[in-house]
């Protein structure tokens, strides 16, 4: 999440893709139009946790936002500090799951819908419309509380979807997820989650008066597959380029903003446009960092408060942060082919495993090692959230896996949201030391063994 106060930084992040700008512009226009519609029609408006199947809402044409996307907008609009204060003033701990609690904090802001002295809206883009539907999956106890309070403060209704824990732990899930998705889950988990989805649909039909159309869902699912297919092509293209045409600074925002719009024609077209733009760079032989020497992987949530951080090691070391989970998730985790057989089951097979591949070893650790290999990674910088139970993910196993494969890892524990705890100088020094003492010597060792790899 971006922040109100920029930490000391040597340079601003340089983003070069038109697709990034286009996504930023689109999301504001989309939000304002959506809010205008909610106000005009007086229709239901939903806030969803990131792992709630938004495709159902898309197919039923129920206006919604994804909570974590809205948190990013609140951060970008410099609201975090004020919202932390509002949580405190209302008796809540501002530091608990703050990444998910921005909309809740906003609901306590009496000025949210007002204008400032210059006539600008005080709430982010004028604030969220009244939430009539608040939905989360029971993936964490605190999420249920947050959505419960959100519903209460807006006078809306809470709906909680169930969550189950994987007994199966397929090490190669990323190879199976697109076409053989039935194999990666315990069947009973999928069965239960499909029934849960049907109950959600029935509840939404009653609540909103809208009808669910399976053909429309299939259309949405096909668009999602189309979009994610482009991300796979982009990821594979970047992975095979030496030097890479773009870095995580270019790809994270371009992908994530469109990911929240998945299932729309716009998002699929945007993903295609992103691919074409990067392909042109590749065809022209353009390099993000012409003196690329080291390829770096970023593990953990994006460093929203200091994107320029990723670029600080380019000139001095030729070290390029070229991998983050945001693009790779789209490439490997979201596509579910053979939708036509059973669109609800295919959709279930997407959302039911989101926690598994992100936060459960060995799903995550086996994927990271495969990705490190595909992308010829020289070193991994791994930010482990230090205040968030939801994001606990077996970092020991992830690090062990990578190190055992000969890939050096620098790990540190930090709060990805609280800019007050972020020290750009210390972090830069730590990564520089890591590059000098571990990544470069390791690269040299490999080069000696097989000179052709250089």
């Amino acid at each position, binding site marked *: 999440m971006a922040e109100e106060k920029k930490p000391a930084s040597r340079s601003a992040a340089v983003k070069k893709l038109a697709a990034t700008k286009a996504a930023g512009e689109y999301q504001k226009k989309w939000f304002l139009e959506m809010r205008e519609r909610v106000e005009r029609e007086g229709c239901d408006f939903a806030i969803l946790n990131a792992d709630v199947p938004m495709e159902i809402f898309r197919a039923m044409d129920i206006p919604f936002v994804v909570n974590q996307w809205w948190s990013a907008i609140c951060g970008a609009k410099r609201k975090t500090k004020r919202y932390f204060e509002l949580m405190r003033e209302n008796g809540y701990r501002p530091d*608990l799951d703050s990444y998910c609690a921005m909309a809740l904090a906003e609901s306590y802001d009496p000025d949210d819908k007002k204008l400032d002295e210059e006539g600008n809206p005080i709430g982010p883009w004028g604030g969220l419309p009244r939430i009539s539907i608040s939905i989360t999956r029971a993936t964490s106890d605190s999420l249920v*509380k947050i959505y419960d309070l959100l519903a*209460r403060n807006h006078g809306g209704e809470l709906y*909680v979807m169930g969550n189950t824990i994987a007994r199966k732990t397929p090490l190669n899930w990323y190879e199976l997820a697109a076409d053989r998705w039935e194999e990666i889950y315990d069947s009973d988990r999928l069965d239960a989650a499909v029934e849960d989805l049907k109950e959600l649909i029935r509840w939404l039909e009653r609540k909103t008066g809208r009808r669910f159309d399976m053909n429309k869902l299939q259309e949405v699912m096909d668009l999602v597959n189309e979009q994610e297919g482009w991300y796979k092509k982009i990821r594979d293209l970047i992975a095979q380029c030496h030097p890479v045409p773009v870095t995580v600074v270019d790809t994270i925002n371009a992908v994530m903003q469109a990911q929240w719009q998945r299932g729309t024609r716009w998002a699929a077209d945007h993903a295609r446009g992103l691919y074409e733009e990067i392909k042109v760079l590749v065809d022209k032989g353009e390099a993000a960092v012409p003196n690329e020497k080291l390829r770096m992987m970023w593990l953990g949530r994006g460093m929203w408060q200091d994107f320029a951080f990723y670029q600080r090691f380019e000139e001095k070391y030729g070290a390029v942060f070229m991998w983050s989970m945001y693009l790779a998730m789209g490439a490997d985790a979201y596509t579910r082919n053979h939708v036509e057989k059973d669109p609800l089951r295919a959709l279930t097979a997407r959302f039911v495993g989101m926690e598994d591949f992100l936060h459960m070893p*060995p799903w995550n650790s086996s994927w990271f090692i495969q990705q490190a290999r595909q992308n010829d990674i020289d070193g991994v910088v791994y930010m482990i959230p230090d*205040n968030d139970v*939801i994001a*606990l993910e077996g970092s*020991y*196993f992830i690090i062990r896996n990578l190190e055992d494969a000969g890939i050096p890892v620098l790990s540190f524990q930090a709060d990805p949201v609280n800019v007050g705890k972020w020290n750009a100088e210390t972090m830069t020094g730590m990564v520089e030391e890591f590059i000098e003492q571990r990544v470069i010597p390791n690269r040299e060792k490999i080069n000696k063994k097989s000179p052709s790899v250089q």
Partner: protein
Amino acid sequence: MLGGGLILTIGKEVTASMSIRPCALRSEAFCTLKEAYDQRDAQALKWRKQGKKVIGKLGFDVPDELLLAAGMFPVQVCADAGKPLAEANKYLENAFESVVRAQFEKLVDGTYGELLDGLAISNSNDTIIRIFYYLREIHRVEPEKNVPPVTFIDWTFTRSRLWQNRCEFVIELFKQQVEQWAGRTVSDDEIRAAGKLMNENRAALRAMAALRHGEEVRINGSEALTIIGAGLFMDKEEHTELVRRVVEDAKAWAPVTGKRVFYSGANHEDTALYEKLEELGLVVVGEDTDWGDRSYERDMDLSCPVIRGIVDRYFLRTPTVEKSRVAQSVEILSGQVEATGAQGVIFYTNAYAEVATFNMPEQRKMLEGRGIKHMTFSRMTYPLRKNEGLDEKLAEFAAEMKGGE
């Protein structure tokens, strides 16, 4: 074993406690319970020496009924405040709460590897779900570690018929695991018999609780925690019998006087906090924790199919402070305060396990509306002695409670 000096009373070796009163220590039944509470591995070790199976429980939604039916000895996994956390610090990120870290240490350093034949983890909160992931992965990548075989009970506490049915499937899976550990099938009659035993145990504890918060308080908070907690480490039949005897003995114990306090929040595996409160002249008349009052709420319905009966007991009992909806948490606390006659409430959460704080603003409003005092202790750690400024804050609360007297 817990820390603290040992005293010898009625032939039993029990740990000295400031709050356990001489009248309690004159009760042989109470001293036997206290011995089990203090010497937590003792009965499990005896059981194992007889060639019987001991199963550890992590989380408070592991059905004793199935383990008992299979002839196994269930024992709650607990922390040891004296152990350095070398293994826990190696495997666990900062955001694991302190008690769970200390429990994990014993699960990975071989302590429980030596004691347990199996470990059943229930998804009672977000943190211990992760402990399951990590232990499962340790088994896979570091099989040389002496970690007991692990199984997971994937309760889904979302209250709907769909998820209640799913829980029946989950408990059937757990039953199959228990049968595998036992090396034999477990009959419905055996499960009903175990359910009856557990219902009797819960009934005995409810009779004990009535002496905590009746018109006259005969059993103080530390004594109650000892009586309840002993059951997590001893034979259930013996525990039931001892609790019944304590209830009879306690009717003659001197009444405890002082302002009544209800405790809400983190589990306490020892009596340290209650002792402090009692030293300040407060009386802890109830709590919403699994090491306390919550453990004996709701019986198993023996008239329905056994798996459904077990699900009914664990799925439908009062939710924990973590699992309840906010409005529900207000209603629950209101009822508990009413039932116990509490004049004050202590909210207490450990750092990194503070979901319950989302309930508290609304709960405080309710208490204030009824003129009930409250104090909140958050970002706490285990063991209790590591919390700086706690004594001062407790004294401040006690003074506020006593104000006007």
